[in-house]
């Protein structure tokens, strides 16, 4: 199985009002050292198979055509190969927390 993480964020040239509001809220919190904030999205995908190169080609299409809009956003795609399935992975994670 392959896990993919896609970080979508506003392009630097596009004014990000959410980031601006978050930055101001942080300053209201009393922390004056934060000068900028940008709000994006994190999308996690699980794919069958273990061919990373093939998966990357498919994922680039998904990122460009759906997950991001290139007019306003950039994305960063990270792929990892995982041996366990999602249904097995979730209980394992819970056990660790407990």
């Amino acid at each position: 199985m392959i896990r993919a993480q896609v970080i979508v964020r506003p392009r630097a040239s596009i004014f990000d009002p959410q980031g601006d509001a978050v930055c101001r809220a942080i300053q209201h919190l009393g922390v004056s050292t934060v000068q900028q904030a940008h709000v994006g999205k994190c999308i996690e995908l699980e794919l069958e198979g273990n061919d990373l190169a093939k998966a990357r080609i498919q994922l680039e299409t998904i990122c460009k055509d759906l997950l991001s809009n290139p007019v306003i956003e950039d994305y960063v795609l990270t792929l990892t190969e995982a041996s366990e399935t999602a249904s097995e992975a979730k209980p394992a994670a819970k056990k660790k927390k407990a």
Partner: protein
Amino acid sequence: MRWAVIQFPGSNCDQDVYHVLKNVLAQEVDYIWHKDSSLKGAEAVVVPGGFSYGDYLRCGAIARFSPIMAAVKEAAAQGKTVLGICNGFQILCEAGLLPGVLVRNKSLHFRCETVPVRVEHPASRFTREYTTGQVLQLPIAHGEGHYVADEATLDSLFVHKQVLFTYSDNLGRTTPESNPNGSQRHIAGICNRAGNVLGLMPHPERASEKILGSDDGLALFTSILASQGVPLAQAA
């Protein structure tokens, strides 16, 4: 003239558009469900406002993959009239039928009010019943109406007279205060280069009868009819 009004899960201005076309302008109108693949012979298509697919991911991003959008794109390519209002504008941008994209209002506020909108060019199938510089009173209701495109696209839109509507004050002046969402160059509505696809954030369908406070939007629909040689219908 036969019209199609597309319904997505989350559309909420479909009935307003249907009412104006059917009851005010005596047109033939069909609701078309987004999973359909045919526009049933419509000569004009309206992609109405709302929150298609809950605005998940980005406004209009998921709606553009609906089966009916292939037919909408085909209609646009054939030169038929395609009108996207509010969320419909966002969908047409995401579908690549219009350039640019609509992002969160600069103020972060959802703006729901009637605003002055200036007509830039009456020489289009959507504005021929208006005059240059005419100031309309049209309702807006959106959180993501801030039009964004790169500078070259913006220049091109103006050069090719594709900017049909801009936000202005009541005297037709574009001032920072008269821009309700931060749209670049005050853009409220644009058409494609061919002139048959229009997207705009204001709601002409909510300002098409005097009883609603303004009928300034009606001429947008009658412009389309006039451009197609359809005699103006009697108001119901």
